[in-house]
């Protein structure tokens, strides 16, 4: 699969591995763009272009030494970085300041949070060997039943708990079909998505007559690190973030520890890599897989609950709008690892946040910018940076003997 990793080591004599050269090229490409936007906002296109050219050179060197993917990635980053930077230097500083503010970071975190929950959930499921295309549906269940719970009980805590239960329940259906009935996991996942769309749609009409839920529903509180009046970089970016955002960020290292540093994590990974071997040493493969899939549903539903109970504070039909699939892409992009998935979620979150701000350049194209995260996901999945390696038994039903 990924061929470039070992190339440098085998050469031995080389001082710098070609992958590092390529990575440096990608970084330079990014820096080229960063130079042109606030707070630096260089008005001359010279430096970004020079940096872009250096990035392209690095990429060429890396590619010529066998690190094709990261090399071409660096070349692409150089071209894109320089081109975007030139565009930025052409546009007025007022517009730039409107788009690239500290609150862009807060906005990025807002949009990255449901993706982070979903990606972490998907990671647990797939690490145990069950493909979970149904993340979208589980997220949608969490979004609807979360706001319903918060509305009926008057408490966001119950809302989130009910959301988690609903997502876990739908995941249980998926788990039963995938594990016990050994149904095709992709078909099952798609079915779960339709089911969630039908169930939430049906009950939205039944309970709320298809209109917006009552306003003033109990909302997940915001963590106030700074006072409302203070305006500096920290206050604008991290000062007033929703509690769920912090929980999502906390869950990233937590998932890492659970998955890679605990016996239960080892068992989950064993079931995903070689279930027969895991079974032989006494691990209950079915139990582990059930647990992991249900956990993925619970996590995805938390992402959905954040969307409605934490962020929008209302509900519309199909409110998740493909976020579960983007979360899945983030997980793949992050190579089935918590920090990688979080990084990818931040990238997609950033593109969404940017899409909401770009309309200052073209009010007419505002709608078109909304497609940006999906285009980016498409490009990312197509593997600009590197091909990822799924768990060996991912998507493979296991039959006990």
């Amino acid at each position, binding site marked *: *699969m990924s061929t470039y990793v070992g190339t440098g080591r085998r050469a031995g004599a080389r001082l710098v591995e070609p992958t590092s050269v390529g990575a440096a090229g990608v970084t330079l490409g990014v820096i080229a763009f960063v130079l042109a936007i606030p707070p630096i906002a260089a008005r001359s296109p010279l430096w970004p272009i020079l940096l872009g050219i250096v990035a392209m050179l690095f990429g060429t060197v890396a590619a010529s030494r066998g690190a094709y993917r990261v090399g071409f990635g660096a070349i692409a980053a150089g071209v894109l970085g320089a081109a975007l930077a030139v565009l930025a230097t052409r546009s007025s500083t007022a517009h730039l300041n409107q788009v690239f503010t500290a609150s862009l970071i807060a906005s990025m975190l807002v949009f990255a949070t449901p993706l982070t929950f979903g990606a972490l959930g998907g990671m647990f499921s797939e690490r145990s060997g069950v493909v979970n*295309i149904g993340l979208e549906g589980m997220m949608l269940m969490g979004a609807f039943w979360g706001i319903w719970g918060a509305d009926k009980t008057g408490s966001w805590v119950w809302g989130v708990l009910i959301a988690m239960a609903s997502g876990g329940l739908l995941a*249980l*259906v998926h788990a*039963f*079909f995938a594990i016990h*009935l050994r*149904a*095709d996991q*992709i*078909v*099952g996942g*798609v*079915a779960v998505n*339709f*089911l*969630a*769309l*039908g*169930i939430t*749609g*049906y009950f*939205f*009409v039944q309970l709320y007559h*298809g209109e917006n839920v009552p306003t003033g529903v109990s909302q997940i509180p915001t963590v106030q690190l700074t006072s409302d009046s203070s305006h500096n970089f920290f206050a604008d970016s991290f000062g007033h973030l929703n509690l769920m955002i912090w929980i999502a960020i906390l869950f990233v290292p937590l998932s890492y520890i659970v998955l*890679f*540093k605990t016996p239960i994590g080892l068992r989950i*990974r*064993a079931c995903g*890599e*070689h279930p*027969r071997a895991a079974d032989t040493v006494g691990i209950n493969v079915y139990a582990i897989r059930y647990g992991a899939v249900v956990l993925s549903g619970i996590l995805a539903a938390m992402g959905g609950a954040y969307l409605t109970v934490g962020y929008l504070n209302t509900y519309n039909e199909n409110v998740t*709008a*493909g976020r579960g*699939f983007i979360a*899945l*892409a983030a997980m*793949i992009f992050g190579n089935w690892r918590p920090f990688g998935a979080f990084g990818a979620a931040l990238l997609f979150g950033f593109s969404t946040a940017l899409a909401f701000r770009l309309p200052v350049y073209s009010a*007419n*194209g505002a*709608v*078109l910018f*909304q*497609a940006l995260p*999906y*285009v980016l*996901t*498409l490009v990312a*999945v*197509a*593997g600009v940076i590197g*091909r990822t*390696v799924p*768990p*060996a038994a991912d*998507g*493979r*039903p296991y*039959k006990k*003997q």
Partner: protein
Amino acid sequence: MSEPLAPRQGPAPEEIQQSPPTTVASRFAAWQRAGGILVPVLTAMLAFLIGGLLVLVTGHNPIQAYWDIVKGAGLNWIVHPTNTDVANTAAYNFSQTLLQTTPLILTGLAVAFAFRCGMFNIGGNGQYLVGLYVANWIGISFVHMAKPTHILLGIVGAALAGAIWAGIAGFLKATTGAHEVITTIMLNWIAYWIGNYIFQQGGPLQGVANKPLNIPISGDVAQSAKLPVFWGDADLQGLHIGFFIAIGALVVFWLILNRTTLGYEVRAVGYNPDAAAYGGIKVRTNYIRAMAISGAFAGLAGGLDMLGYLYHFGTTDVQAASIGFLGIAVALLGRNTALGVGLAAFLFGGLLYGTTHGLQSGTIDPSLAGHLTEMIQGLVVLFVGADVLILAVWGSRRRLKRKRPTAGPAPEPEAASS
């Protein structure tokens, strides 16, 4: 930092022997051998049963609701089929059901064709939409063209647009290995936002007359681009000749798959890509080709809908479009065969029209019934995916012949979803 366990290139040898067939196409082949027409019928009945339970639980009469849906779909017209006058409600509803069946056949074929090549095309909705946009654009432009050429251009353009849209996913799969499920879903959303852009206020396809009124709807296609209507009135959504084109597509689908080299290669790749490659078939080329043909069916569906009865489209229509998604349930219920897709499309066409437009019922709210369709669709896909029930029965029967009965009773799927 601890590494994950060493990645392997494929399944361990013992797993190949012991686990049941796992790829979509090999499963499908085993399933094809194992069951008859009975399985899809049972699947559909089970889905309707569970849907009915939900209707009951939420305080409506399920039998009355389903009967209303049957009447809404105009199926009671079959009792007096000689009365084709569309002033008759039943006859009109039945013609509308066939109108809905037309695109469902084609989006079902789109999913089925990709399935036969071992791919899961859930981008039918995006391909349907781009086909629709292109047909709308062609229908509005070229106003001085003769009717046959204008129609032909519109239809071919729509199919081509769908083919390109799906071809992107096929190309990405062939060159980078990106999974087609994710790429087609992303392409769906991109098509969705493109539609929201082109029909919005000031968008490139917004109707000239709609601009001052601030209505985000395209203009009507020219008279020369409208498909002839053979049952009913063109002003009242009569049934257009696109219905026969869809029936023809069923035949074409069967011919391509069973009577051409291309179809042979597509099926070979679907059964086992490694074996096909060993036999000299270019697997990557076939991925792209199969996806493009698959997309062409879906794009054609969009083209026929646009030139057949919609004539114009707006941003709210883009947001509500779900014909392409229903195609998945149609293909799976129809077991990816031409005849099966035709029958399943008719079932879902009836359900679609019967629950939304045709429903005049005091029993169940039409918008509630519309979501019932979605749920039944989900249940059908869920149960069709669980073919292991049939495999288990089939396997135990064969083992019974050879040795002793070993397999225990298979678990019932009802237990999971009730």
